[in-house]
């Protein structure tokens, strides 16, 4: 006892009371490594429950406004880019796979594989945040940031920025009038693509074109984008094809796209498409709410991705030092749980925000 007291530098339950039979990674107040592992896991699950409830508040707000202002959401979501959203979903799902793989590697003591998988997972996070950045940049360019910065912000019944508003309407109307037709195809059970006879391998070109033309503001051409969506979701094996092409495609493809789009949209030209003029004047003043909710949800989620990336970087650093082995891999396992939750929340955010119809 008195020997132990010499360690006055000790700040509590430190090593000086470390029972001699404990392995180094076992904290003094646990009896067995299993007890410590189970405690850690339980703690993380409880923490994940708090995360679910925190996001639950946002989902609840989403549900209420979606229910109350259906058209506002149908209109506003046109500003979102499904292609980037889908890409991000793939990126995040892939990073969840590498994370799970990494946990397995840690459990089996495969040091190299663990490091590789943690690195890939981290890069998944980087990729996600970069794409998110591209998306946010697009919103920034069209003055769609939330609150008083939003082009749709009204003050005392009048648009705060009439010019920006006009531009934003042009932007979203453009996307919506094109996007709707695609939506129709999609609504047709996902086999629209087959009916239209669009070969899968044309998808990248079409998609790329849609991106380009979309920014040109030429509404009627953008329709290609949802076609790709149909393609990608109708044929999961081809998910890779939806990634943006590495090099700009031949502009000559344009015609083909328009042709295809034209074929696709013929049956139901402008059906449930919500354009600015379709909104009541009361709803027009609420469009900015959609962006408020969009940014709160994706922003909070992005923050969680960042936290997860810090966690994974830390795990990588620990793993590099050889901290984990067959008997001690709890931090990897528990960190993995967190990463999967971050992924899971996005799995809900993506359809709720990007795939409305």
């Amino acid at each position: 006892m008195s020997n132990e007291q010499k360690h006055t530098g000790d700040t509590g339950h430190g090593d000086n009371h470390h029972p001699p039979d404990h392995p180094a990674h076992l904290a003094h107040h646990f009896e067995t490594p299993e007890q410590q592992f189970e405690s850690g896991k339980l703690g993380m699950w409880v923490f994940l429950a708090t995360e679910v409830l925190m996001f639950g508040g946002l989902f609840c707000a989403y549900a209420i406004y979606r229910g109350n202002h259906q058209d506002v959401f149908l209109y506003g979501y046109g500003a979102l880019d499904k292609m980037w959203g889908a890409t991000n979903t793939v990126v995040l799902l892939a990073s969840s796979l590498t994370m799970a793989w990494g946990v397995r590697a840690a459990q089996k003591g495969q040091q190299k594989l663990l490091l590789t998988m943690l690195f890939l997972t981290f890069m998944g996070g980087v990729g996600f945040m970069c794409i998110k950045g591209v998306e946010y940049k697009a919103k920034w360019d069209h003055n769609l940031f939330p609150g008083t910065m939003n082009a749709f912000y009204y003050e005392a019944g009048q648009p705060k920025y009439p010019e920006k508003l006009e531009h934003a309407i042009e932007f979203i109307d453009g996307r919506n009038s094109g996007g709707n037709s695609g939506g129709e195809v999609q609504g047709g059970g996902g086999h629209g693509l087959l009916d239209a006879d669009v070969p899968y391998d044309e998808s990248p070109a079409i998609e790329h074109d849609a991106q380009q033309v979309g920014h040109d503001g030429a509404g009627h051409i953008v329709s290609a984008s949802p076609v790709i969506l149909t393609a990608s979701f109708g044929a999961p094996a081809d998910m890779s094809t939806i990634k943006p092409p590495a090099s700009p495609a031949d502009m000559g493809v344009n015609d083909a796209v328009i042709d295809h789009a034209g074929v696709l949209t013929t049956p139901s030209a402008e059906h449930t498409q919500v354009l600015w003029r379709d909104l009541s004047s009361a709803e027009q003043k609420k469009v900015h709410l959609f962006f408020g909710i969009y940014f709160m949800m994706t922003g909070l989620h992005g923050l969680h991705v960042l936290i997860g990336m810090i966690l994974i970087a830390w795990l990588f650093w620990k793993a590099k030092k050889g901290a984990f082995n067959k008997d001690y891999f709890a931090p990897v396992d528990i960190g993995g749980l967190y990463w999967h939750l971050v992924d899971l929340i996005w799995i809900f955010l993506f359809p709720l925000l990007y795939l409305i119809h």
Partner: protein
Amino acid sequence: MSVIQDQVKVSGYGGQQGPGETNYINHSKGIMSWLLTLDHKRIGLMYMIAVLTAFLGGGLCAIALRTMLYMRSAPDVAPITTGTQDVYNQLFTLHGAILVFMFIIPAVPAILGNMILPLMLGAKDVAFPRLNLLSWYCYMAGATFFLFVLLSGGLDTGWTFYTPYSTSTSTSVAAATMGAFILGFSSILTGLNFIATIHMLRPAGMGWFRMPLFLWALYATSIIQVLATPVLAITLMLLAAERILHVGIFDPALGGDPVLFQHFFWFYSHPAVYIMILPGMGIISELMATFCRRQVFGYSFIAFSSIAIALLGFLVWGHHMYTSGQSAMTNAIFSLITFSVAIPSAIKIFNWLATMYKGSISLATPMLYALAFIWLFTIGGLTGVFLGALSLDIMAHDTYFVVAHFHYVMVGSMLTSFIGGMYYWWPKMFGKMYNETVAKVAWFLIFFGFNLTFFIQFIAGSQGMPRRYADYLPEFAIYHQISTLGSYVLAIGLFLVLYNWIQSLVSGPKAPQNPWGGNTLEWHTSSPPPHENFIEDPHVTEPYEMRAWDYDESIDGYVYDKAKAIELDKQSQH
């Protein structure tokens, strides 16, 4: 459990102080040994200092606002102006916000829970000591934000931050919400820690139904902390976004819905009411058993009623919003569920009374607080049922009747159980006894002063005195005067308690290991406990089997007869 140690010490313990002269307080020295400690007992003490300081601040606000209301009855002396009304608004807001977020919610779990929970489990610490320390730092960070609010224009929204006023007032709402947000993390971390600790660190021989009832109560509390607090977090975040960016989710001028804020807020804040009261109920169960020297009557009913209250507490938030435009059907459903909360609450009360029946009651100070609790909680609880009734609530909404009701529960009941628990575990925490006479006088002043302050408010409220008003009609003057005088008596009583505690620390006699004869595991170690809590593993039996503890006059405490305990344990297994 070490068999060898058990055999060596089968003769029992409790006769002398723990081996050696060191305990958790003097185990190591220097400010950093406290600020970086991972010892749950030290963290509990640090919480105690911080939380009691907040209590002092919030309490002074209360005295100040009661004084302003008293002065109002003499308008010649203190004329009411816009300026004084603003001050009044800030006082009741800070009073509420500080006491709710910084005192009532953390008081029992963070101080007594941290201190006692691992001891009751015979464990060396909570499951996550680092998170525990982090929770204290979160508390301090949140408190700093509130300090900033005080210095930067105050806050006048009421502790509820209702929109749209909170998005338009010029006071420091953003800083206050940030503070409450961070305090919420402190609360979540404590709850998470307790859940994991109770699940994973129970000693061999302590199944769920051999846990002291205080732990059941803390477990139920933790469930609420973990599940409700994140909703407050997101609510406050949305509110901050609303204020800073004008996102518009809660602002009707921007197309948002202010009632949604109320739903979100009460989805947290009603369960939070049970965060405040449940651990106090756990303390009362301990006090009842120890000071009636009896097994708690209806152990499993009390245990499950804690869980029932925790779960039902999530389903009643709408009763705060009867007048906010909910549909009649919604109101009726919330009213019905609200009534049902009375069932588990009454189960507790009746079980405590049954525990007292034929017990050999000792009216030590902690027991007096337990009795005060039953009195005050019965009044507070039953008036809660009144208010759960739609017709009455619509009349009494936002009157002093509501104020009196929740002060009976949140102050009367919670505060008496907290102080009772502090007195009960004081010898364990500090190894010192206190002056029993002073303690009893203080108890009387608190009990009398509290009832004087708040009972009259039921009457004022039923006569129509609205809450949160700096001004009132002359016919309400008498109620306010009596109430203010009562609050002074209450304040004197509380300061006397503080004096009592300080005097005990300075010159109190040495406390025995077990001054009360309780059998929960914290009494199986020395007072104050050593750094590692237990030198030898404690002997786990029925938590309220006190017959193995024999009174020893020479130490004015109880000594454990382990052979007898083993024998009694064998009998109870049959």
